[in-house]
């Protein structure tokens, strides 16, 4: 678990992923402590896998630990992921 942050693969914004893709959560750009913590409590901690279920006109629906989450338009540009 310790090496999850020095993973050498490049990260991309979630907004650039496609429906059906599974990616690894890497972090959030310009996120305050509160937001990062809240995401972690929902299961979105660095290293976690997420699957893109649907992308609407802006927001995304992703699957994390068997739950579905809506990530708003602003979020999908700030969340960084590593493609598998």
């Amino acid at each position, binding site marked *: *678990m*310790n090496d999850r*942050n020095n993973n050498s693969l490049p990260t991309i914004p979630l907004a650039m992923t496609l429906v059906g893709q599974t990616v690894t959560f890497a972090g*959030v750009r310009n*996120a305050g*402590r*509160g*937001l*990062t*913590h*809240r*995401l*972690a*409590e*929902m*299961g979105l*901690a*660095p*290293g976690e896998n997420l699957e893109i*279920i*649907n*992308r*609407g*006109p*802006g*927001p995304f*629906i992703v*699957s994390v*630990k*068997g*739950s*579905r*989450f*809506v*990530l*708003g*338009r*602003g*979020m999908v540009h*700030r969340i960084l992921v590593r493609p598998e």
Partner: protein
Amino acid sequence: MKDKRLTIALAGNPNSGKTTVFNAITGARQHVGNYPGVTVEKKTGSTTHGDVRLDVVDLPGTYSLTAYSIEEVVTRNFLLDEKPDVVVDIVDSSNLERNLYLATQLMELGVPLVLAFNMSDVAASRGYNIDEEKLSELLGVPIVNTVGHKGKGISELLDAALVVAGKTASKQRYPNYGGEIEPHLLQLTELVEQKCSRQRSRWFAIKLLENDAETIKRLGQVCPEHIEELTLEAERIRKHIESVCGDAAEIIFADRRYGFISGACTEAVTQSVERRHERSDKIDAVMTNRYLGLPIFAILMFLVFQLTFSVGNPVVDAFDGWKGDLAGAVSGLWGESGADSVLRSLLVDGIIEGVGAVMVFTPLIMLLFLAIAFLEDSGYMARAAFVIDRLMHKIGLHGKSFIPMLIGFGCTVPGIMATRTLETRRDRITTILVLPLMSCGARMPIYVLILGAFFPERVFKVLGIYNVTNQALWLFAIYAIGIALAIVCAKIFRATLLKGEATPFVMELPPYRMPTIKGLAIHMWERTWLYIKKAGTIILAIVVVLWALAYWPKLGEEKLGVFEQQRAVVQAEKQADAEQIAERLEEIDNAEHEAKLEHSAIGRVGKTIAPVFRPCGFDWKISTATIGAFAAKEVFVGQMGVIYSVGEEADEESEPLREKLAAKYTPLIGFCIMLFSLISMPCMVTVAVTVREAGWRWALLQVGYLTVLAWVLTTIVYQVGSRLV
């Protein structure tokens, strides 16, 4: 019988079936109040199990015990301060890992705990095989399977709760945070124990490391002289953890809690296939489709109003008829001589006409609340937020703000309370400011009255099959105007007073569920009951006052004598036929009614304020009713009922209010009334809640801008309209 009393607190994630379990435990013996100081709803109920009396408290639904939302703070403080004898955590067992996160925090808190594995039917049907015995052993907490809406397992759940109640949670396990963290955590725990609190010291230590402001405040009150030392030490350890683990301490904690859960679940749960969302995802592929989502949403909204109207209207008509019968029957008690009885006038003209005018709309309100309950219970509400996110973005809010607005279509007050799920104050205030523009259920009676009076029902077919009434279209237009105005106003607020970046939008989507009849009935009834209660209390009181204002001072004898004389003259005319005489007599009656009203207190007040409303096309009667609507929107209808019935002859065949209005005003004025009621100042209760949730300055702004906006728009419509027509 021993009278042993115990308190059970129900905790759980939203959508875990907590309310359903609460209802199953307490039945109808419920009481809804508020937690002290905040507007979070507090539901309590009681039951007896064996020979023990149980007080059950339904805590707010939360995902965690971090102090990010008022709900979480309330839940935490209740557990820390009130110390319930046992906590039952309602877990959605078809979504185990995520739901157990709250359980790990309850375990860390060290409360006597029982886990209710609710939705066990769903878990089984989705191929989850949970070894409860093993999981119970791994977590050190009793587990009981339940099916909330069937009442299954509830008795066993209470059995288990009684066993655990009041005992120290000795067997309970909690997450181990691993070699880099545990020694430091232990050291801080000891420090807390020595300096501050012997109880829950590990919990406090963890929260200190998470840099939890509420905890620091709480400990600061318990041991002000040591708090600095504790926070400094916590800060030091946090830095250390961050440098070793590469992430903030609270992230590591969250991650390890999930690790702990995951470990337990790997041992105790086998899963044939991941199918929890299979069906939901299929429905979502259509409902949240990037092209279909919005049209589907619009159609659904339209159906809600169409259904409410086409089903509700005939019932309202029937109720209206009964109200007339009742008024006639009560009037009849006085016989011929009753015309001058004050009591008769109070009962018939005041209470039956006033409160009755509000009560007859109950069926419509019920249907509207039923529709909203269906959207909420089925899980569609969250999808609506998703679909609307892009539009909301354009006005500087995000999709989540839309849920309070949707609830606002039922009633603005719970809508405002629902804004608490929004993370930033900016978003909350903006949403609260525009919420009254979401036309609430209490405004429905006004629209229905006006539409019935001026826009007779016509039915036409859409696509050759579907019947649509012109009234439903009008109604839809009014709601659409409200939404459009809300969009414009929100944008203006976000660009001026409430500037700032859009906040991140993250929300869990619950799987779609078929709402149960019982659940819908309870949700609908809770809100409808509030409407009825309001009619029986606040509105009754206002109506009585208004009646008195319309009844006194009475017209002098000599003035009344003038009308008597006129009548005598008409009746004495020999040459005119009977029909003409009747017509002229009616004219005189109307003139007398008018004169009596103008002479009354309300007439005088009305006349004084009328000039203000004249540009909107309102006469003094509508003006007074508009002012009365501040108390509660539906008072408008009640007040028109009173104004148009006080002073009428008791034996007169009373025509429905809508016919009186149709005879007196034009459809344009009718529309202006609807428009003004839609926009103008929110009702008293809304203002009170806004003061509590946002502060009095925002409440003042809300009242002010809405009233001005209403006046300006209505005036424009009336002035332009009356030149065109």
